[in-house]
Structure formats: structure tokens, C-alpha cells
């Protein structure tokens, strides 16, 4: 399944840089902003995990409102196809490093809705998933345990599966196109982003991105243009 194994954080030779990297990873692990997006019924166990009884904030986890602000996307339960589109858009709008946690059995393989025409089955076909927390539904302790596991992975510099989305975009796009049809597109520019982050890999572009580029209207960012620039171009 993993055609392109991801490198663990490269150890830098400069000890100062190493300490710096470790500090950043430590802070990333200790400050996880999760997106306030109740995708499925597992979301009902998040309020207990967040509120007075289990108090996620003591671990530095707090809910955030928009994808831009968040680090973790919690997929709490089954994702219907309609939701999955929004989830993918949301995921692409989040700022990397970003982590996806699949909560509930339904995200693993469709769970008890395996024969439903409306839900997507395996979440990791569409998005790189860092941690799965199985159960229907997992208890708040399990959710926190899963988050702690993710914390450990981040601290150790191993939680890099967000890079997979850039390196193997074609594969994820294939699954998305399979489900949503060939016209599927989002306003984000994953390939350009992959180039920006030096994550452009052999799997970034392929058959499916070609299909995407055929019909996608590329949304170039609105550059500030001065008089002279436009004069030249026009």
C-alpha cells in the first residue's frame, strides 16, 4: 500500500539545529488545535473529552473553528459522500503539518454501514490518516489515548503522513475521482504546494492529475499588479 515510504525527520548534523527541530516538534505535539467539524456520530464523544470531565485542554488540545487555524482533522465517524467532499476541501485548506485522526470503526472500513450507498468506506484511500481509533464509538479515554499516541508520534518526528498527500497526490485523487466523478476539483492547488514544500514526488502527478488539469480552471492567487506589469502582459 505504501509505495513511497516516508522518511522520518532527517536528523540534522548541526546539534543546535537538531535541538531547534526537536523544540518545534515538541511544541507541535503540545499544542494541537483540532478542527470543530462534527462529521459523524462519533462527535458526540468529543464534548465529554473536551469538557470538564476529561479536559483535553490540559494536554494542549483545543477546538478551533476554521480549517486555517487547525492542525488536526478529526473524522468522527462515517463520512457520507457529500461530507467527504467537504472533508477533502477542509483538509486541503488546513495548514501543514496537519494530521488526520479517524475515529470510529466506520472510518476504518465503513463499519456497520458497509453496505450503505451513501457513505465512503476507507478513509485512508482519500486522505492520509495518521491515527485510527476504532470502536463504535470510542470512549473519550480512547479518543484521548489516540491523541496522545499522535502526540508521541509528532514529538518523535514520525507523524509525517501529511507529506504523503503531496507525494502521492495522484493516488488520492484517483480514489476521489472514482467516487466523485471525473469532474471533481477543489479550489486548492496541491501540485503547486507540493513543489513549494519540496515534496514533489514521483507520485504527485499522474494519470488522474492530468484528467484534473484538463478541466480545472487553475485559480492563480490574485497577485498585486502594478501598472507596468499589466501593461506588459496585456
Amino acid at each position, binding site marked *: 500500500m505504501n509505495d513511497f515510504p516516508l522518511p522520518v525527520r532527517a536528523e540534522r548534523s548541526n546539534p543546535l539545529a537538531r535541538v531547534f527541530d526537536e523544540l518545534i516538534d515538541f511544541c507541535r505535539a503540545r499544542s494541537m488545535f483540532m478542527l470543530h467539524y462534527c462529521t459523524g456520530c462519533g462527535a458526540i464523544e468529543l464534548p465529554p473529552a473536551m469538557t470538564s470531565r476529561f479536559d483535553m485542554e490540559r494536554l494542549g488540545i483545543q477546538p478551533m473553528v476554521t480549517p486555517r487555524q487547525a492542525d488536526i482533522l478529526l473524522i468522527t465517524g462515517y463520512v457520507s459522500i457529500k461530507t467527504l*467532499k*467537504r472533508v477533502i476541501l477542509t483538509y486541503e485548506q488546513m495548514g501543514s503539518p496537519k494530521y488526520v485522526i479517524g475515529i470510529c470503526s466506520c472510518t476504518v472500513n465503513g463499519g456497520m454501514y458497509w453496505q450503505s450507498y451513501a457513505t465512503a468506506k476507507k478513509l485512508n484511500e482519500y486522505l492520509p490518516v495518521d491515527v485510527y481509533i476504532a470502536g463504535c464509538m470510542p470512549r473519550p479515554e480512547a479518543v484521548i489515548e489516540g491523541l496522545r499516541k499522535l502526540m508521541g508520534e509528532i514529538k518523535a518526528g514520525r507523524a509525517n503522513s501529511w507529506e504523503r498527500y503531496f507525494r502521492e497526490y495522484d493516488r488520492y485523487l484517483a480514489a476521489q475521482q472514482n467516487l466523485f466523478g471525473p469532474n471533481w476539483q477543489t*479550489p486548492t*492547488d496541491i501540485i503547486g*504546494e507540493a513543489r513549494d514544500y519540496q515534496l514533489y514526488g514521483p507520485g504527485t502527478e499522474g494519470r488522474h492529475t492530468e484528467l484534473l488539469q484538463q478541466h480545472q480552471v487553475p*485559480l492563480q492567487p490574485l497577485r498585486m*499588479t502594478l*501598472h507596468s506589469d*499589466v*501593461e506588459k502582459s496585456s
Partner: protein
Amino acid sequence: MSVLDQLLVFAFMTGAVASFIGDRRFAGTLLAILYFGQFLLLVKLAPLGYGAQPVVSAWQPALFGEVLVWRMDALGWYFALITVVAGWLVTWYASGEWGQGYRERGGNLGLMHTAVAANVVAMLLLLSSGNLLSLFVGWELVSWAGFLLMVMNGRESGGVSGPAGLRYITYATLGAMALLAALAIAHHASGSFEYIDLIDAVDQMTGPTRVSLVIAFALAFTIKMGLLPFHLWQAPAYAYSPGPGGAFLGAISSRVGLWGLAMVFGSLIGIGRIAGIELIPGWFDLRDVFMWVAALTIVLPTFTALRQNDARLLLAWHGIGQGGYMLLGLAAGDALGTGGGLMHVLNHASYQAPLFLAVFAVMHRTGTSDLNRLGGLVARMPLTFLVMLIGIIGLAGLPPMNGFVSKYLVYISLLRQGEPLLFILAVIGTLGTVLSVFKLLHNTFLGQLRVEHMEVREAPWSMLIPMLLMASVVVVTGTAPGLVLDWVASAQAALGLPVLDHTLGGAAGLDMLWVSGVLVYGFAVGTLLFLSGNKSRRVHQFDNYAGGHFLTAENQYQYSDQFYAGLMHHIGGWYRASFTWAESVVIASVDAMSAAANGFFRRTQAVFLLLLATLGSVAWLLWGVGS
């Protein structure tokens, strides 16, 4: 021939050139050069700004046995400098693509140039008037020159400018009548039209005479300045003038009213004597009346501006409100207040003109100044945005721009005099301005770029450079207000007011050099902090949070109409209750009067009837506003 004569002749020459070849393609450039010549002559007069003796014109014609005298002092020079620079830069602005576009749209470019030049000449004549007679002549010229500029834009403004101009000239005639009355009183008391005789005579006047003299002068000048309750003519008249003309009018034209009031408060009658006229003994004197009028002039038009959806009207209403600060400072009477008030004239001109020009640049490119049809233009017109940004910070009176300095002086003056209510009204005006100008900036330049504006280009350099020059004045005089305060101090000295003790960085415990310095330092720290993060990645505006939905060009995703809806739920009723009602009454009456005047004018004894009609309308107006 003194330098003043050279200046006046040069100005006449500019006007003549404009009227003969103003519609040629190269005329704008030529005229800009001629204005620059005027500017150089003014620079030659610069010693006036540093305490030199007034310069007298050699040409002193007699009229009905009285001599017309022109003499430029520090105050006049200060105002003349602003006038000529404004005239120069707006002409430059109109000299290139804007002028062509204006002509293509069917505008009479030559007439516009002529009108601007006529305004400059008239104002120079007025500002250098040496006695009451030349004052009156200059006054009339300024009124009619302004009228010319206001009404010439009938077609482009959709027929709005004509009625607006007519309304203006009605008010202006009333002002002229008042000035005539003041002249009559003055001549009666002093036996001559000379300022010095009048100053001597004021002391011997009886109370009622003095009061009526002050009121007559004040009426004349406040109407021109657009102070409450005579402010209703100004906004539409300025807003619908052709672009550079509107900018010129908005920047300086109405400030001749303040010039007049400065003369009255300073040399002619004296603020001390005005304060001596007690309306409620021990509580309320005539100076308080001026201060309260000024304070209300700050607040009410500002909050009217808040409701405007047309960028030009919004700015024009603010122009009225800013006049309140100047008068408030002047009426405060001490060195700080008058210094702040006088400095605000230059400051106001320096940001109001580029703001108008920026709006007209946007109009030039997009064809509209309706705030609900714009948005997101910062990506397409960044320099125009910069000009507007600097302008609005100045207009709102936030540090480090120059608008803050002059307002600060006024605030401190009020603080020292223990006037909390006036102080808070001035603050409310500032806050209202912040709200209103942010709406202007947001709705024009921020938010979603509309699809029909995707291909819009930045304004041409012929328009940008004058705007940027003026905007740079805002920054420079904000950082080093001492440059202007020197001139202001000389003007104060010329008026016989207490002179402001200042440094290059400011006055009254304020040092803008330091403040600007730490702001730059702070921005540098902020930039360093910002750059310490990873490089940012630009995204398209459709790549945006919409509750998880996909944004497309079909979504209307821009908040601009009813921008302060929450506030208006609270104060919206106050507008309906008082203000728009009065406005509609006045508009309706003025319209009726204009129509009647038009009818009369086509009869035989035109002049007489016009005079009669104007007087009648004025009386009716006064009654209408007063009740």
C-alpha cells in the same frame, strides 16, 4: 512690481492660457508647469512663513473713491501655498489619461482647467486682500469661480451637479449679503475699509453693533465653510464636480471661510472680545456658541458620511466635518487650539485631495464610485490603495499621520481649558471618521475582487504621481509637524494670536519624531517576527473558508452594504428623527427656490428679480432650518 504682483499676474496668465487652449492635449502639462511657476513664486515669498513683514502689491486701483489694497501676510501665504499646490497637483492629475477620458466622456476639459485656474486666481486675490473692499471683491470671485466648477459637470453627474451648484450659489449669495452687511457696519463704525481702522473702531463700538458685526462676518464665513446649520449645500456640490475640480474644492476652497474667521478671531475683532459677549452671563458666551457649532459640525456630518454609499459623497461629508476641528481649534483661542486649527487646514488639504483623487482614479478604471459595486481592488490598484490608506489614516486622525497632530493640539487645548463635552464630541467625530473611512477603504479595496474587475489596471503614473506627492506630504508633516508649525506660528503672530511653542516633532508634550520612530522600530520587529515563520503561500480568494462549502464566482461573498448594521440598529433611528428630515426640507425648498429663480431670471428685470428671489429664499431657508 513686487513678488505678489508677479504671482497674481502669473496666476491670471495661467487662467488665460487655460481658457484659450485648455482643451488641447498638451494643455494640462503646460498648465501644471505654470502652476509650478506660481508655486516657485510662493516659495520666493517663503520668508513670510518665518515671520517676515507682509508683501504689498504695487497695483492699488480705486473703486468708487475707495482704494483696493492687496497685501499678503503669513496667514495668506500659508493658505495660498496650499491653494497653489492643490491647484498644481490636481491639474497635473488631469493632464494625462484622466483628461482624455473626461473629454471622451463628453466633458469640457478646457472649461474645467479654466475653472480651476479661476478658482486659484480668485483665492489668491482673496487671500492677499489688504482691506475690506478687496476682501469683498475676492470673496465674490471665489464664490462664482466655485460655482463655475460645480455646475459644469451636469452631464457626467447625471444632472445632479446643476441643482447642487444652484443650491450652493443661493447659500453663497446669502453669505455675500452678510459680508456686505458686515462691510456696511464696519464702514459705518470706522469710516474706512482699512483693517487697521476697523480694529481701532471695534473697541468703541456699542455692544449690539459689535454683536451684529461678529454675526454678519460669521454668517458670511461659516456659510462658505459649511458649518452647521449651513452645511447642506456642500457635500453634493463638491462630490459631483469633475474629479480634480472636486478634489481642489474639497481640499481648500471652503477653507477660505476659515481664513475669514481666523481674521475675525485674530486681528479684526479678537477672540477675547468675542468671549466677552456673554449670552448667559457666567455660563455661555459667543465664543462658546462658535465652539459648540464647531463641535456639532464635527459630529453630525461625520455620521452622515457614515451612511453614504457613494465614495465621493462620503468624502465630501467628511470634508464638512473636518472643518469643525479647525473652527473648534480657532475658537479655543489659545496657542495650542489656534495652532491646531490652522495646521489642520494644511493637513486636511493634504489628505482630502488625494482621497478624492484616489476615488476618481478608481472611478476612472472601474466606472463607478458606488461602494456596493466595488471591492478587492487592492490586488489591482495597489498604489492607489496606498494613497487612500495614508489618506484615511490622516483623515481619521490616527498617529503617525499629520491629521493626528493637529487634532491632538485641539484636544490638548480643550483638555487644558476643561471642556470635557467638547472634547468628547471631538473624539466621537474622530471615531465616527475611523468607522466611516474604514468602510470606504474596505468596500473599495478590500474583500472579494468582483469578477468584472479582474482585468482592472492600476491608474496611470500621471494620476499616481500627484496623488503620491500629496500622500507623502501627509506622512512627512505627520512625522515632522514642526515644518508646518513654523508657518502656523507665523500666521498666529500675523493674526495677533498667542504663538505656539513648538519643536520639529510637535508641541504640547508630543514628539512625533519619536513616535514615528518607535512605530518604525515596532514594524521592523513585527516584520522580523513575521519573517521568522515559514514563507507564506498566496492563495486565490475562492480558496476561502465558507463553512466547508466550495466558493465559486457565483457566490456573492462580499459584505459591503449596511456595513455598520449593528450600530445602525441603535443609532439609525436618530438619523431619521432629526437629520434627514431637516435635509429633505432644505433640499425641497432650495429646489423650489431654484426653479422659481430660474423662472424669474427669464423675465425682463432679471437682476433685480434674482436678487429678490434669493433674498426671499434665504429668509425662508433660515426660517425653515431654524424651526
